[in-house]
């Protein structure tokens, strides 16, 4: 049913650290790999080797340039996937009941055999987390690797989402936000984790850790002035070359 549960036993989700993400897109590739080979319809590509390639991705990395009033511009890499919102607008708009939020762990999923591909859930999502697969005609979204995290055939170390497992800079963390003692809850408390578009009222579970403060303009070393160039006008042999070249 597309009615949202009043509360969920667990609140599984991700913490994404914008301070340490290096924008390598490894999470994008590992996500595409795992979710093409495992649960549900594969994530198709159209014209992958041609002039105009497009395809379905559940996780994409944007890059933003942020310029403070009194400091140099910063480049911030910004991975974005489903935020498994507590008040998920994508679920309630679904006419068939294909979209649902699980009571046991809060994961938002699509039952692909019930999806009619109307696309309304993608319209309802402010984050662009849902993409219609052009080959399959059904809606695809992040499953939080539901087929990995409970999978006892995998070694315990691999029982986390593919994007988290693969991240080389440890910018992605997976855990239960309902437990205040969990690794992710503590990270959010410690680093001031934030919601994306809080004004949309979706109450996202995934949190983003803002970049740590960077250097500011104006912190010039006391020895700095001694590094000013000393020779304003070239003299000697180089000076002769300079004057000669000027005359040519």
């Amino acid at each position: 049913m597309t009615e949202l549960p009043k509360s969920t036993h667990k609140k599984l989700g991700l913490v994404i650290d914008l301070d340490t993400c290096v924008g390598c897109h490894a999470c994008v590739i590992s996500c595409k790999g795992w979710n093409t080979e495992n649960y549900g319809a594969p994530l198709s590509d159209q014209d992958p080797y041609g002039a105009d390639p497009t395809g379905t991705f559940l996780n994409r990395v944007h890059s933003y340039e942020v310029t403070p009033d009194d400091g140099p511009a910063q480049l911030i890499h910004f991975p974005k996937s489903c935020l498994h919102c507590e008040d998920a607008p994508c679920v309630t708009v679904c006419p068939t009941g294909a979209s649902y939020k699980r009571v046991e762990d809060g994961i938002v999923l699509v039952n692909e055999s019930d999806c009619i591909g109307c696309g309304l859930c993608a319209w309802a999502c402010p984050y662009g987390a849902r993409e219609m697969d052009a080959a399959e005609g059904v809606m695809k979204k992040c499953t939080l690797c539901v087929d990995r995290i409970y999978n006892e055939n995998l070694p315990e170390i691999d029982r986390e989402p593919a994007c988290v497992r693969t991240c080389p800079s440890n910018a992605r963390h997976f855990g239960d936000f309902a437990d205040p003692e969990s690794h992710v809850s503590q990270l959010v408390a410690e680093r001031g984790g934030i919601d994306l578009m809080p004004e949309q009222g979706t109450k996202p579970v995934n949190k983003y850790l803002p970049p740590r403060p960077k250097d500011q303009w104006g912190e010039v070393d006391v020895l700095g002035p001694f590094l000013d160039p000393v020779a304003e006008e070239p003299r000697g042999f180089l000076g002769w070359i300079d004057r000669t070249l000027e005359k040519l």
Partner: protein
Amino acid sequence: MHPAPSIIAFTTLSGLGFGLLIFRGLGMPGVTGLVAFAFFAIGFALAGGGLLASALHLGRPERALKAFSQWKTSWLSREAFLAAATFAIMGLYAALIVFLGVRVTLLGWLGALAALGTVVTTSMIYAQLRTVPRWHMPLTPVLFIALSLGGGALLAGQISFALVLLIIAGAVQILWWWQGDTRFATSGTTMATATGLGKIGTVKAFEPPHTGTNYLLREMVHVVARRHAVKLRIIAFALMIAVPLVLLLVPFHHLLGVLAVLSHIAGVLVSRWLFFAEAEHVVGLYYGMR
């Protein structure tokens, strides 16, 4: 938002069709036999044809029947439900009039109510979306109802109703455009809130996630065609309101009536095209576009 021809055709035609069925349900015009059959056939063809067009844009049309299940939460499901109810009630009502010459008033009112409800649910599919600020306002259902009733009166040949209702629809349309133009700015969603980076400084999209396009950009970020929006608004208003009004005020002739209807339909199509093409989804902010 991408102005998909199937959805534009659907909302325009089914809006008119249900509008006509509302007037038929209320017993206007009070015809029987073959003439009644023709009126009902036009109403059912427009409403049903529109619904069929909307099924065309589904990724999996063969599963469309599943859409009847979630009426408790989903406006799209409610629309499917009420549309089916309208067809059932009005079908019976029409059959009794056409074949037996009996008009069951209560059945007609019930059918009209269901048809009105269908138009409301259609509009709520758009009005409910907080992600598209231009649509997310109480005036959106008002606009859909006003245009449906105005067009319905025109199709049903109810000239005095059509005159009043078209003037109301025109006023609502202008108010809707005027309010809609400031909705994105007043919604409070910006690149700063989308990325959460606004506290650091001015946010600019530096690099998109990929060099090509994707489903999100194709479906929800439609920038190109907004350039002629003002001209198209004037064209839409002239065709759907002004021309039919003038044609209704001159001495009546059936040919002029047909022209008024055709002009109105063309105008609503342009207005509906703008409804989608001008609507900006907040997801565009992640791409530095609107």
